[in-house]
């Protein structure tokens, strides 16, 4: 009986196509990767336990946005594009200024983001969100 002799043949894995396989994998991952370039405006919401903090009136600027997208800043109608400049002046005068943004329930989200963008431009750090009145 012949027991299988150990073969002297060298059993090499062919490595010539290795780079091709790696290339394919690379292309697969390249295609599936979505490098997110999406960015956003950050905001910190008030904590849920509602401690009512008294703030002196002179430190608050009211900013109201109605359903038509008009902005009322301290009882004056202003253009959205002018908000940054006005708020910047106000913050320059009073560093403790808090901007209170109040929206109507039918205000478009787009308008709200535009206003928020303006506030960011004015470097307003203290932004408070007032809840829209329920009907």
């Amino acid at each position, binding site marked *: 009986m012949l027991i299988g002799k150990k073969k002297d043949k060298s059993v090499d894995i062919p490595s010539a196509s*290795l*780079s091709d396989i*790696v*290339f394919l*994998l*690379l292309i697969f*991952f*390249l295609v*599936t*990767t*979505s*490098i*997110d370039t*999406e*960015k*956003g*405006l*950050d*905001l*910190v*919401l*008030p*904590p*849920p336990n509602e401690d009512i903090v008294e703030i002196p009136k002179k430190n608050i600027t009211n900013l109201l*946005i109605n*359903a038509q997208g008009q902005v009322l800043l301290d009882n004056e109608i202003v*253009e*959205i*594009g002018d*908000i940054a400049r006005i708020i910047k002046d106000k913050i320059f005068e009073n560093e403790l200024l808090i901007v209170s943004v109040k*929206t*109507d*329930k*039918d*205000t*478009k*989200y*787009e308008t*709200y*983001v*535009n*206003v*928020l*963008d*303006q506030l*960011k*431009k004015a470097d307003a750090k203290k932004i408070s*969100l007032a*809840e*829209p009145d329920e009907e």
Partner: protein
Amino acid sequence: MKFKKKSKLNVAIPTTSMPDIIFMLLIFFMVATVFKQFSGLKVQLPEAQRIQKVPVSKRLIITVWVDLNNKVVCDGFNLKDIKNLRNVVYQKLVKEPQSQIALKIDKNSNMGFVNKVHQELRKANALKVHYFAKPGAGGRG
């Protein structure tokens, strides 16, 4: 005057290290890839200028989509009722307390609903939110 002779040197790019380079690239892309199970809702993002990158890793972002019909999706969970958002976000925050919220809200939604989302997020103690927007001339100047 003598002009320089064209050198007959063989200028071949060394290709022996090419597989190594490709390997490196492959590993980079493998590490950078995050497979998202759910691609979310189709929303039209608003435009803004002062937008910033979210300062945490992609794995720590909880994305909340809100579309025109006030449908809410939170990282693959299709929420039937806005009231469920609180629980879903809370559960995620328990697992990853560093998480932040990315809000992808359609630009034509109205604030009444956005505010409900705010209230839910506040109740879940998810206070760091990011309103995602496209770079553009939002706010007219």
